[in-house]
């Protein structure tokens, strides 16, 4: 232990200093600038001045309420879909994977090895108007003769679900993998059916994974604009699209900055409501 006592006073700070300084200057300080900018008025040609312009926030909420609500809605649906789709597979790998577990997990993260934009473009190809999926749905009369999937909210939600699926599946797997199989056996001895054993033992024990997966999927999904841009139309634009275009195309920085903060606030409120639903211990458990 003497190794760690000798320079106890200074060494940790010397180790921390470069990295923490970097994060302070390029993560914390920029958030301050963003807050400052969000209360400015003016425009790019005549310059901006700080005037406590709270109306930036109210105007953003007024003009882009639809996009804010749509972002949270799409993110929530995609998160729920990802949970339902990947839970059985995470279960299957955890309890039936045997020594192939790592290989199967590799398949789960395989989409991450293809550039995000390229795999979204691949969905554009798959869902395109003359593609196999649309043709099949048309011949089954699920889609009308002129019906399409691209430029619909279905395509955007499907894209978001696919793109963030591994973020859901991995934490689910980790929590399911840690469950002691004997607990489930005991439950099956005591409860009548396997379904009851699952609902009363396996599901509650996998709750930390569900919580972690939900947060890891919902937060990036709510801020996403790539799926809406490539798979949707302007009717499916999310708040990320608006922030992106305000910053980089219309150079309306104060409004864009205000919207960024509203997005963060929206996510925080959603996470808070979710925490009330599942219990705070679960949430802090994943944060620690």
């Amino acid at each position: 232990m003497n190794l760690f006592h000798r320079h106890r006073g200074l060494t940790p700070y010397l180790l921390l200093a470069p990295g923490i300084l970097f994060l302070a200057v390029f993560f914390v300080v920029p958030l301050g600038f963003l807050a400052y900018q969000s209360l400015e008025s003016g425009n790019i040609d005549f310059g901006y001045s700080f005037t406590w312009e709270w109306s930036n926030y109210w105007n953003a909420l007024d003009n882009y309420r639809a996009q804010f609500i749509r972002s949270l809605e799409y993110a929530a649906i995609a998160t729920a879909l990802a949970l339902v789709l990947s839970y059985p597979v995470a279960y299957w790998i955890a309890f039936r994977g045997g020594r192939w577990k790592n290989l199967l997990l590799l398949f789960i993260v395989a989409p991450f090895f293809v550039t995000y934009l390229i795999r979204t473009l691949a969905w554009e190809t798959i869902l395109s108007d003359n593609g196999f999926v649309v043709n099949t749905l048309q011949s089954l009369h699920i889609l009308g003769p002129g019906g399409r999937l691209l430029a619909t909210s279905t395509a955007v939600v499907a894209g978001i679900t696919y793109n963030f699926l591994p973020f859901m599946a991995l934490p689910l797997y980790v929590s399911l993998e840690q469950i002691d199989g004997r607990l489930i056996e005991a439950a099956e001895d005591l409860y009548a059916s396997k379904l009851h054993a699952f609902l009363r033992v396996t599901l509650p024990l996998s709750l930390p994974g569900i919580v972690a997966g939900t947060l890891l999927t919902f937060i990036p999904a709510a801020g996403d604009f790539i799926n809406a841009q490539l798979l949707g139309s302007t009717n499916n634009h999310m708040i990320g699209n608006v922030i992106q275009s305000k910053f980089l195309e219309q150079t309306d920085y104060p409004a864009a900055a205000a919207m960024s903060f509203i997005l963060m606030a929206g996510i925080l409120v959603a996470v808070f409501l979710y925490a009330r639903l599942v219990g705070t211990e679960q949430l802090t458990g994943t944060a620690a």
Partner: protein
Amino acid sequence: MSTVAVPARRERRGFFAAAWAFVKRHVLTVYSILFFAYLLLPIAVVVVFSFNNPTGKFNYTWQGFTWDNWRYWDGVPGIRSSIVLSLQIALLASLVATALGTAIALALVRYSFRGRASTNILIFLPLSAPEIVLGASLLTLFLNLNVVFGFWTILIAHIMFCISFAVVTVKARLVGFDRHLEEAAMDLGANEWTTFQKVTLPLIAPAILAALLLCFAISIDDFVVTYFNSGNRITFPLFVWGAARIGAPPQVNVIGTAIFVIALTAMLVNVLVQMRRSKGAT
């Protein structure tokens, strides 16, 4: 579901339980295979369409097989320089972020000091903020300080969002680390630096390598934060974004496939080595 809903006599329940067990065993497997097919479908599309010979500018429908996209992978103006820039940024960002992150991880696991909890929060926050907010806030910083956007702003952005990933990766390894090994080295007369070099560093080397690879992968794939802070420089994801607006050429699929194959091979080797090791151990 019906097994629970129907309050049946004993032998009926036995039958349903058996049926449920059968269904559960096989449905789960079939479902999982379908799930993997769904997961891998877009990847297959990327690979297949890298061999497409599109007639128009849109690479959406299959027209015919050709090797040309692979032979002339840099036949599209701008694609080669975008890949070079992405590789440079990923290499530098992963090296710097891993160095900074490893130091933070060592401090967090090894020492108790004032401000430890807030350091943990500072590391956790960038991981939990939406990317668009990270990109936008950095943009306002650079705008307000009149920084010229380009190579350095991209590099700074990438180091910033990589640090936390590096810290988390190295920390995971350090937590399960046997400190007696270091104490033994000190007892045998090694000083602090020698101990670190000869004992600590080799033991955490796999975690450092993992952090490097993770940062490299995240950096080379990043679009959102880069898009906000790139000025007129174009990384590979930005090239894809620009190309997508006018119809992405099949060369984009070629590079996508190449990145996929390289990453998959590296991971497969890793997994197979692990499997052989665990097999040898049992």
